[in-house]
Structures are given as C-alpha cells and as structure tokens.
C-alpha cells in the first residue's frame, strides 16, 4: 500500500532537503518512494535544489526503471522475469498474471487496484519463481499463489 500519496509540494521540499547531500539519485528515489512516481513538479524541484537543468534531471529520471511517470495502483506486484525464475516456470506465471489482470507489464488495472511490473532478479533465485508484492518478498510461486495475491489486491 502507501503508494497512493497525493502530491504535496511542502512534503516534497522536506524530502529534497533531507536527501540533498546524498545526490540526485537519492533525491529522486525518495520522491518516487513517497509519491509512488515522479510527479511532473518533482523534476523542477530536484533541479532547483541541486542546481541542475530540468533536462539533466529528466535524463536521469528517465534512465532508471524504478522511477515511474504515473502513480501506481493501490498495490504493486513486481514479478521477476530473469533466468532463474524462467527455469521454474516464471514465464507461464507472467502470462497468467497479465491474463487475470487484463493488463500488460508497466500497466495499472482500470480500478486502480494493482500495478503489474517486471523486475529482473530479486535475489530469491534459490526459491524461484519470485515476486515482490507491496515490497514484501514472495517465492516458490505457483498459479494459486499468483491468483491469491491478485485476489488480495482486489479486496
């Protein structure tokens, strides 16, 4: 949960001030974490605080997979698509998840219940296939586990 926090410039400024000394990546990561995405005003805010151009900040923001342009749904399912998970049927689970949710990776269901994301390796390769559901690790996944995570998200 907690991904759905509306943009609040004052809060954002506090975050920027707190992370300022640790560099742009830390600033953007903290804003992305707090608001679930990088709000369009976040770019300008970060640029000003770090004395960079908006273009430079946009360049960094668009480089990293973690930074979202749109706010996610109430829940985020990050399914691993890397080789170890492939070897244990991860591709089939990916097909199942997209079919059950009716969306592709990087998309959010129309009811905003869940955002489905692809991730390449969670370091849970000895208990593949694996996923992060709202930041919590889940492994040895099978079709039932995927269905119950989706059901939980839709509650």
């Amino acid at each position: 949960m907690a991904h759905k926090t509306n943009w609040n410039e004052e809060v954002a400024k506090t975050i920027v001030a707190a992370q300022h000394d640790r560099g742009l990546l830390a600033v953007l990561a903290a804003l992305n974490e707090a608001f679930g995405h990088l709000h369009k005003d976040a770019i300008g805010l970060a640029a000003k605080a770090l004395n960079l151009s908006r273009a430079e900040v946009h360049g960094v923001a668009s480089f990293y997979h973690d930074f979202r342009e749109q706010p996610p749904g109430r829940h985020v399912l990050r399914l691993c698509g890397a080789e170890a998970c492939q070897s244990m049927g991860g591709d089939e689970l990916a097909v199942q998840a997209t079919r059950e949710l009716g969306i592709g990776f990087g998309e959010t269901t129309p009811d905003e219940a869940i955002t489905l994301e692809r991730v390449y390796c969670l370091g849970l390769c000895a208990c593949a296939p694996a996923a992060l559901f709202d930041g919590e690790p889940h492994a040895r996944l099978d079709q039932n586990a995927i269905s119950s995570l989706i059901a939980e998200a839709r509650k």
Partner: protein
Amino acid sequence: MKRRIFVPRDAGAIAVGADRAAAAIAEAAKRATIEIEVVRTGSRGLYWLEPLVEVQTPNGRVAYGPIKPEDVPGLFACGFLDGARHARAQGNTDSIPSLRRQTRLTFARCGVTNPLSLDDYCAYGGYKGLTRALTLAPQKIVDEVARSGLRGRGGAGFPTGIKWRTTAEAKGENKYIVCNADEGDSGTFADRMLMEGDPFLLIEGMTIAALAVGASKGVIYCRSEYPHAIATMRAAITTAREANLLGARVADATFAFDIDLIAGAGSYVCGEETALLESVEGKRGQVRAKPPLPAHAGLFGKPTVVNNVLTFAAAAWIMAEGADEYNALGYGRSRGTMPIQLAGNLKHPGLFETPFGITLGELIDDVGGGAASGRPVRAVQAGGPLGGYFPRSLFDTPYDYEAFTKRDGLIGHGGLVAFDNTVDMAKQARFAMEFCALESCGKCTPCRIGSVRGVEVIDRIVKGENREANVTLLKDLCETLKWGSLCALGGFTPYPVMSALTHFPQDFGLAPELAKV
C-alpha cells in the same frame, strides 16, 4: 531456562514464510507458557529447507525444515525444544551433509548469529581482521591481500591486491572505498545473504580497505530490489558508528572512515563499476571509457577502490586468518573459496561455499541434486545473464576462472542457473539479446542497436527465414558486440547467445531434431 530458537530473517526465507513460522512459534510457546527467545539470524543458504528453524540444545543446534506455521504445534508436541525426532528434523545443523561439505570462510557466521548484534559478531571472530590490520603498515595490508591471491568476486576476477596497491599509490587527498552491491545477475544472491546475514563483515572489510589505501569515505551501492539488505545494512552502519567502528573516531580516534549506503534504482548496467560510479554521482548510469581506471580517477574523479561485497568480506577473513591460509585453498590461479550460488531448477538450490576446483557436474548433479522437476538438467547458465550456457558435455569443467574462460564461459559472480530438458535454448538466446536491449546504457552502438537487431535475427532463424544467412549474420553481430562495446553488457551478451547456438543448434532448427539430452 529460556530456550533459544533460531529463525532466519533473510529475504529468501521470509519469502517462503519465515516470519509466519516465527510468529507461530512465539504464539505456541506463549500458549504452553514456555519461555523462549526467538533469535532472527541470516540464512544458512540451504534454501530448499527454508524456513529452517533451529533449536539450541545441550548437544548443539538441531534443525527442522521446511517449517510451515501448521507444523509448529506438532513440533512442540514432539518435544523439538529438546531436539526430538520429527518428520521435518534435519539432525544437528552442523552435520547436515550439504553444510558439512562446505568450506565456509566468508559465510562462517551467516545463519549462525544475530546479524545486527555487534556482540555476536565479535564473539564469533568479528573485527579480528581490522584489529590485526591496525598493527600493520598500510603497505603490509596490501601485501597480505595480494599474497592471498584474492581476485575480485564481482565477476571480472581482477587481483584485489593490485587494485588496492594502485589506489594506495595514486596521488590525491580524498580517496574512496566503493562497494558494488548491485548484484543484478539472475542466479546470484550471495551479496544479499551476506548483507542481511552478516553486515558487519562488509563494514569491517571496507574499513580494512580504507586503512590500506588511505581513504576516509565509503559508499555501498545496493540495488533497490533488495529492501531487506538495505535496511539491515543501514542499521548495522548506525550501530558501528555508535561503537566508533565507523565515523571520525575509529580505532581510538586514530583514523576516520564512514560509510553511506546509496540505493540503486533498477538499472542492471549500474553493476558495471564505472556506470555505478556515475550513478552514485547522481547521473545516468552510463559506462565510462577506461582508462582512467577508477583506482586513479574514480568517484568524483578521486582514486577509488571498487570491489564487490564478497571481495571485501574475503579480505576481512584474510586479514584475520592470514593470506597463506586463504591461498592454500583453490585451483590454478583461482585461490581461496567461492560462495557459489546454485539456483533455478534444482532440488537443492542455495549457497555453497567451497574452494575452487570442484567440477560443474558435481555442483549441479551432486550438490544441487539435479533438477527439481525430476527431469534431466539440460543446460546451466553460469555467471548470470552475460554468462554462457553449458551443456552436459561440459560438466567436467572445473570451477575456475581460467577453465570457464577457456570454454567460452565465465564464472562471473558465482551464480549457476539450471534448466531441465523442457528449456528452449533459442528462446534463452533471444532473451539474452532482449535483456541487453532493455538494460543497455546506450553509449555503445553495438550494444544499443545490435541487441535489438539480435532479437530480430534470432526470430528469423527460428521462423526458418533464410536460415543460413541469418546464422552468419548473428555470428557476425556477436563479434561486433564482443569487440565493439566498452563494458561487459554488450561485450558478454554474445556468450549466452553463441553458447546456445553452438551447443543446442537443434533448438534453432539448425540440426535434425535430436532427442533432448
């Protein structure tokens, strides 16, 4: 007497229910009014047994696993607090065959101690390495690491002693120690386990490196996909600061060294050391041309040691126990032990730390127990997404940097991903190109564009379009990627592609369909 029960807090154990098992144990003890202390440890790395619960008995620790919450009442009923027999009992932890066969140097404490207890760390030999390093001249520390034969565990296998020496000799006031904890290779998890299970060891190793080269600032760049490792590492850094093991007054205020942890943001290429440095500087993770080497001009242009988590951890062990002890183990020019990570379709996946020299076949069939699916293992990808696929006919390859290179592969960061005979190797080759396209930093044309073209060419081969000409084109493309890219992403993507094509041509429709394996 309060009974001690150990349950891992490792993300891999939590992912299969360790938190629920720990809660069920606490609840059952409360109901039975038995006083217990649940100690959350790292993982032993025997993942097929996770959640692995251990009980302290007068005869040592006894293990039970895998434990589901519904198993807990039965455990209490059978008297597991005294190490009683149970369907899930594994006997004395130390005598579990898969553990007994290992030579745990780097991972000696992982799974044994409470990772955030500095007392535990010191009671089990922690800070012995730094204590010894403080009695030596910086030059002697470097010599010791060099003499151990330790090579970079991130994947490149560069001699650590030479890297430290170059940084020590580089001119410059501000030097940096950077830890590469951007463990992005699929099939690898040793860095994560170590940071979650024995974080002070990494802090100690980095502190020793700082002492050796004269650095006062350290950075751990940890991937964002590892939230548990980040939290544990940050907590350990805070504890170390409070104990003056980091900060302005380390070692009776004789020197200053502090560490900051920077989280990545989901970019695989940031595991390449120069892209990582760019990322720490708050830029796009774009690879730098070398020279200059990071040892001369690294983070913010200053002399910088960039090493992997396991390298720093091994260095701490070497300082504590001696270079000769470490160097005595190994094979050829690969000295010491390697924490090998067995992953994917295996019965017994997990961490297996062993001296170099064990064969790939022993690791997969014997230690790993063969495929979890019960089918034959057909291919093993060694060294992550940039590593080659090994067929069974190469299972006699000894685990050694040079032996793997000789067979067009790499050991990389020590990951092995097994696939059973349902695998489609043309699909795996296509994925390698697809992954390269997705993660390319965009700097080198062969990697940025060649990877996209590679996916298309493989598609055409599989469809049977002008097959021979397209195979020639794919080989040519791989040569261009290999020689025309600055870093390993573009340079090594040909390994999985070409190994799949060479060893499994039938999957590309190139040879008559052979009976698989």
